[in-house]
Every structure is written in structure tokens, then in C-alpha cells.
């Protein structure tokens, strides 16, 4: 008995220890650095405590990055869920089982692409002269140039669409599979109750799937926070600072423009605190 009960401990303790070291050490180190004034160019440093944080709140570029991050989060999460639910329901309603399988296979491919590859593919697709995504515009307007990635008003949406292309289609497959797991009788009862097709989904199936759909949304919210690679490849935060999210700005402050590692760390710490608070609050709300 004793040997059997010690087995989980044997497996869990090293793993948890490694995980703890890997996650806690960098976090604590980041907090420590954020309270100093380290720069990449020299090894001298002193403790400046909260001055990095105070500087951040006076930094207009930082405030812009916060706004861009919030916008990015909202746009990608909402668009992904809308696309996923819309396409999922559409497939459920009109596609035959065989066709559904083919669509599912097709819709999973984008998310299997590494982000960087997807970003490059779409960067070419958005090319103003040769891109396939801008081709219809050139065709209609008779050759006018449209460069979505270099216009501040469209750049964020152009990058976000790639994110939605990857995750919205994948989530559509999940929504379809969720719909397929539902018992058919409530849907049939709703048909007898004079509900139209869209009403059946609005009032019966989607509310029945509330819990898994919210979980999906949380997954996407967390995933949207890691948008660095996509934005880095497609716009590098540009044009100007139009797509500069917090992680982009932290990266450029820390490693590209000025090497202010402490300043960047302060941003990372703020982001972590904000994320933890936001998600805790949202989670509590959903659970209630």
C-alpha cells in the first residue's frame, strides 16, 4: 500500500519542482529587475524602486501600447468567437456529415501552421502589388494601391484577421463538434414550439453550450495575449505605433531601441498584474 501511494508523489514532486523553478524564478527576477535601473549597455545598476513604474505612466507610447493591447484583445476575441459560432452553426445547419468532415479538416489546417509561417503567408497576401488579399481591390478600382498593413487605421485589423483566420476557423470546428454532442430532442421540441432555425440556436443550443463556449473564450483570451510573433513578423508594431502592443513595446524598449531592460521588466510586471486581476475578476463573474 505504502509503495503504491508514494508513486504519485514520486512523479509529481520533481515535475512540480521544475515547474515552480521555471515559472517562479523568472517572475521574481523580473520583479527584482523592474525595481532597478539595469541597461544592456553596462553592468552598473542601482535600486530605483518604483521610479520605472512612475515613468511608465508618464510615457505616452506606453499608454498607447496599453490601448492597442486592449483593442487587440477585444477585436481578436470577439471576432474569433463570432466567426467560430457563426461558421459552426452554419456547418451544423447546412453541411452533410461528409461535407462537415471535409470542412473540419480544412479549418484545422490554419491553426496547425506555425504563427510565424502564417504571418509571412499573410504578409505576402496583403502585399499592395502582388498580394492575393488585395487583388480584388486592385481589380475593382482598376489598379489602385491598397496596403492594409501600412495604414494606421487598418493595420491592427489586418493583423487581427490573421489571428482570427487561425483560431476562428479552428474554434468553428470545436463549436460544430459541441453542437453535435447535444441531445437532439430539445432541438426537436423547439422546432415543434414554432422556433425558427436561428431562434433554436439563439435560445436553445447556444445557451445549452454556455459553459464550454465561455471556456473557449478564456482560452482565446489567453492565446490573444501571446500575439507577439504575429505582430512582430507582420508590422513590428507599425505603422508608427499603430499595432504596438505591450509586449512589442517592452521588447523594443528592452532589446531593440534602448536596451532599458529594467524599464521593459517594469512593463512586463504591470502586464502580469493586470492580467491576473482581470482574469480573476472575469472568472469569478462567470462562476457566479
Amino acid at each position, binding site marked *: 500500500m505504502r509503495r503504491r501511494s508514494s508513486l504519485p508523489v514520486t512523479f509529481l514532486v520533481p515535475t512540480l519542482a521544475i515547474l515552480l523553478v521555471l515559472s517562479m524564478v523568472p517572475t521574481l527576477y523580473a520583479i527584482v529587475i523592474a525595481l532597478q535601473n539595469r541597461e544592456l549597455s553596462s553592468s552598473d545598476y542601482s535600486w530605483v524602486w518604483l521610479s520605472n513604474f512612475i515613468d511608465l505612466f508618464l510615457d505616452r507610447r506606453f499608454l498607447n501600447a496599453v490601448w492597442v493591447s486592449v483593442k487587440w484583445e477585444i477585436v481578436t476575441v470577439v471576432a474569433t468567437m463570432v466567426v467560430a459560432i457563426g461558421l459552426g452553426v452554419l456547418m451544423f445547419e447546412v453541411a452533410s456529415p461528409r461535407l462537415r468532415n471535409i470542412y473540419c479538416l480544412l479549418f484545422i489546417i490554419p491553426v496547425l501552421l506555425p504563427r510565424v509561417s502564417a504571418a509571412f503567408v499573410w504578409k505576402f497576401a496583403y502585399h499592395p502589388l502582388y498580394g492575393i488579399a488585395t487583388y480584388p481591390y486592385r481589380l475593382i478600382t482598376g489598379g489602385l494601391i491598397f496596403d492594409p498593413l501600412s495604414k494606421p487605421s487598418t493595420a491592427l485589423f489586418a493583423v487581427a484577421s490573421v489571428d482570427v483566420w487561425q483560431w476562428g476557423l479552428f474554434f468553428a470546428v470545436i463549436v460544430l463538434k459541441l453542437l453535435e454532442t447535444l441531445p437532439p*430532442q430539445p432541438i*426537436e*421540441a*423547439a*422546432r*415543434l414550439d*414554432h422556433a425558427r432555425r436561428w431562434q433554436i440556436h439563439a*435560445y436553445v443550443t447556444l*445557451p445549452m453550450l*454556455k459553459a464550454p463556449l465561455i471556456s473557449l473564450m478564456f482560452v482565446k483570451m489567453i492565446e490573444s495575449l501571446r500575439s507577439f510573433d504575429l505582430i512582430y513578423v507582420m508590422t513590428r508594431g507599425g505603422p508608427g505605433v499603430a499595432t504596438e502592443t505591450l509586449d512589442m513595446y517592452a521588447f523594443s524598449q528592452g532589446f531593440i531601441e534602448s536596451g532599458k531592460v529594467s524599464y521593459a521588466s517594469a512593463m512586463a510586471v504591470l502586464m502580469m498584474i493586470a492580467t491576473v486581476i482581470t482574469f480573476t475578476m472575469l472568472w469569478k463573474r462567470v462562476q457566479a
Partner: protein
Amino acid sequence: MSAIVCSHVDKSYGATTVIHDLNLSIEEHEFVVFLGPSGCGKSTLLRMLAGLEDISGGEVSIGGRVVNDLEPGDRGIAMVFQNYALYPHMTIFDNIAFGLKRQKVPAAEIQKRVEAVARTLGLEPYLARKPTELSGGQQQRVAIARAMIKTPKVFLFDEPLSNLDAKLRNHMRVEIARLHQSLKTTTVYVTHDQLEAMTLANRIVLLKDGVIEQIGSPAEIYRQPGNLFVAGFIGTPNMNFIDVAVGRKDDRWALTGAGTTFSFEGSGFDLRGVDRAVLGVRPPDLKTADAGDSTNLLQGTADLIEFHGNDALVTFACGGKEVSALVPARECPALRAPVRYTFEEESIHLFDATSGVSLRRQEKLS
């Protein structure tokens, strides 16, 4: 006017035909039960009436209107499902009111009608609860309320009591019967339970492999089964069947089988030209034979005795054939004791051995 008419209705899934050329007409205010073993197509037929399954061929009309291409909601029907099919995320009130809301009935009227229906079915205390907080019987009552509130022309019940335990099933059966008595709505009820069929139905439609085997009142179906399948399916305990050879002796029919010869006047049956038949006797029709009885005897050694309360079911082998007799418990023999049973000519059933069709002479229509 008939409430429901099915004419030449077919249903097939690909190459498999589930229902073939079915003709049926159901009168207004009637309580019709579709009865049959699993897979006989009774639920499919009901779902075709409801519009949840396409009709492959033929025509279905409800209330004089062909409904083949109508949406389920537009057919003037309401359905109660086996597993209740309540909307799990809505309160009982919203469950009942859902259909009315979709029809844009004013909120005040919805409130009034839901309350009225809830009062009829004793659901008032539960209106604010969710379906999962209710017992199976209460949930089924909600499903009935949801069907009732639409004041449909036809009620469809798809094995509504199968998910309930025996006691609750009896209770709900009585409630459904009462409900039909007071509402008088035409009802089609699907079940595989013959007790439900016998107690509830005005008419039973007995189905097998998508074909109607017999239509009739419960008494007709029990007393005059049209063929071997109906005779074997209806009645618990099951009817005894004995293969017999048909002959004439002393101006009477002599049926030889199970190691003995039965002698009948046979006026109720048309046995001319038949040489092999199946003799059917229901276990309750077997009576303990007196010492003086010498004809129509079934005898053997009791090898199984099942106690049913008032009665006991005695099973014995008679000429290699297993035969059961339902006798009053006080007449019950001991296990392994020799038993002798006899029966009246009026209680027998005779079927053609090859076609299985009853050889009963068709009574003249008055």
C-alpha cells in the same frame, strides 16, 4: 372528419424500408396507441406525423390539411418525448412558455395561460426551478404542460413513461388517461408496453417491421388476434401455441399435436382445406381438469411455478411442447407434481400454420 389520415405512407433510409404502404385513419377525440416491438417503426411513424422525419412517399394529413411539407410547428400538433426534452437552461415557466413566446403571444396572456396549465398539472410550486431540480415524473409533467399550452389539435406521445419507475409509471398513466378524458384532444401514443396500450387506448395499432398487423380496440385485439404475431405479442403471460394436424373424426374437427388429439365442433373457425394449424390457448383459459374430464387435456409434470400473488403460473412440458397455465394460487400444484388442464372450445384460437393468419370465421357485420 378524421383528425389524422395516412395514405400509402412509406419511409425509407436509403435502401432500407422502415415503413411500407401504411394506411391509417384516426378519428377526432380518439386515443390511438401504436404498439409493437422495438424497431417496428412506431416511433418513426409518430415522428413523421410530427414532421421530425421526412415522409418518403404517400400523404399525411392532419385536420384535413396535407402536412407533408409543413414545418413541425405549423402542423397543429404537440409532442411529449421519452426523455422529456426540456430546455435544461430555462426555468419551468420559460420551458412551458417557450412556444407561446415564439408565437409572439402577449406577455400577460402567457403568464395567465402558463399559470392555468401549471395549476391543472400541479406544477405551480416549481415554476421558478430548473428542470434538473425536478424528479422524473415532475419533468414529464412539465413536458406535458409544454405540449398542452399550445392547445394542439393532436397530442403525440413518444414512449412518455419509459424513463419512469414502475410506480410512477402507473400514476402518470392514470393522469394521462384523465387528461384525455377532460381535454378530449386526439392523441397518438407510442409504446412497447402492452399494459399501457391496453389501458389507455380506444384503438390499438399493432405494428411489426413497418407494417400494420392489426387495428382494433384493446378487447378485439386481445380476444380476436388476427394472426400469430398479434396473438403472441398481446397478453401476459404469453399465449400457448401447439402445432396441430387438422382432421375430421365423428363429425368433429380432430386436431392432433403435442402427443394428444383435441376434438372441437369448430363452428367459429373455417378449417376447410387446412391440414396444418397452430392452436393457441391463453394461460388463464386453462382450467384444472376434473377426474372425469377425458377430452382436450393438456397434461405433464409441473417443472416451474411462478407465484403472481392471486395466481400462479404453472409451466409444464406437454408432448415436448412447453405449456403454461395461470391458475388460482390456492389450486397451485407442487413442483414436479403431475398436472392436468383442460379448456373450453370458446377460448381457443386457431391459425394457419404457414401464413399465420387467424382461421376465425369473420363475423358478419351487423
